[in-house]
């Protein structure tokens, strides 16, 4: 008699179910929190507490994102729009970048039918936010509107999908450069379909580099890993230190990375 072994599909389904059940208890993008609250999570770990303490010299707050495998893209989407939506010139530049991204997607073989709804949601959301600000919406109300829009499943997921598509299109268009770094697949199309475009698939450095290059948006990621040897949390610039040095026009975003998860950080 052979034991009844679950199929790959059943295992994948169960895995998804466990993640979904856990994730749904969390908002997609949570409220602003003092960074000191993070130390409460690490009562038993001196190494983590030391690193958080070092982070506090530069950062004052964080905003938690749902841990559903989309956290990098979700955190990026929120932090990006939050950084620019009050500034008309930056909004116009971002809208132009979004319009140009459609050309990148089409060149990479995406069907307009498959991406135009998501692009439209990204564009409309930013336009709505910007218009409300131009019409004199107060700072606090504008912030609330941003949170409401980007915590709604429809808008937030559409932005996550579209940022995934941009990342995928960029990698496909620059595959000679990135192919040597793939561990999970031997060709770029397979890698992109399975590990970039698919919802819930976690992001690695390659995703971050591609997305920040494609959009021309600079990002700093603070790594909190509980390392015994580094008291200070390491901060990595993306796409690269060189591009940061020359890219004065960058909108700069800040994220916190803990093994397997991204949240948004706010500077002092």
């Amino acid at each position: 008699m052979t034991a009844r072994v679950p199929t790959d599909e059943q295992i994948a389904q169960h895995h998804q179910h466990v993640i979904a059940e856990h994730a749904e208890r969390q908002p997609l993008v949570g409220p602003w929190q003092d960074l000191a609250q993070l130390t409460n999570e690490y009562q038993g770990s001196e190494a983590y507490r030391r690193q958080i303490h070092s982070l506090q010299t530069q950062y004052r707050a964080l905003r938690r994102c749902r841990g559903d495998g989309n956290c990098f893209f979700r955190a990026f989407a929120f932090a990006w729009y939050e950084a620019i939506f009050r500034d008309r010139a930056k909004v116009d530049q971002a809208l132009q970048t979004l319009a140009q991204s459609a050309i990148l997607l089409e060149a990479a073989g995406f069907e307009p039918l498959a991406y135009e709804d998501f692009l439209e949601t990204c564009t409309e959301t930013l336009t709505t936010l910007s218009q409300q600000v131009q019409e004199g919406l107060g700072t606090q109300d504008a912030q609330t509107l941003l949170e409401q829009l980007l915590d709604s499943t429809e808008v937030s997921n559409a932005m996550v999908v579209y940022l995934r598509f941009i990342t995928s299109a960029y990698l496909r268009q620059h595959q000679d450069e990135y192919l040597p770094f793939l561990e999970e697949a031997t060709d770029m199309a397979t890698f992109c379909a399975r590990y970039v475009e698919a919802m819930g698939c976690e992001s690695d450095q390659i995703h971050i580099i591609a997305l920040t290059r494609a959009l021309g948006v600079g990002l700093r990621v603070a790594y909190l890993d509980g390392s015994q040897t580094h008291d200070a949390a390491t901060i990595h610039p993306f796409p690269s230190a060189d591009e940061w040095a020359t890219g004065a026009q960058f909108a700069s975003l800040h994220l916190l990375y803990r093994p397997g998860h991204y949240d948004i950080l706010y500077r002092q």
Partner: protein
Amino acid sequence: MHGSAVRRLLKEAQNYQTANPSDCAQGFRRLAPQSDSDLFAWACIIDGPDDTGYQGGAFQVAIAVPDTYPMQPPTCRFVTPICHPNVHPKTGEICLDILKTAWSPAWTLKAVCLAIHLLLSSPEPSSPLNCDAAGLLRTGDTLGYQSLTHMYTQLYALPQ
């Protein structure tokens, strides 16, 4: 996500309806919702690829679209009986990675139909739902496989 799925499916329905007939000569036909009242239940006819036991056959496939589409894949099954290593002989369930674990939201229902058409000429005997058909292929009995699939096609899939 219901609203965005409806919007997307309406667009796809309109797109396929107005498509140039020559666009459809890609291995499938009549990709459309089964009725006007339910946008989430689709169907299409997959044409048997030339030089296979399915040649000349027209296979109806039912496509159930979830309200999370396109984040999640549609569920497809053959309504017309078919003998294929990756199709369950009783339920018509299709074992195709892009419809399960390897789905990408960048795909459309048209892409799904193309993939099913391709599966007919490129079976994967290593992940069988129909062990008899897979067994013939695995043991290298292509003649036996050809005649078995051809017989099923003649019995069930000839256009009326």
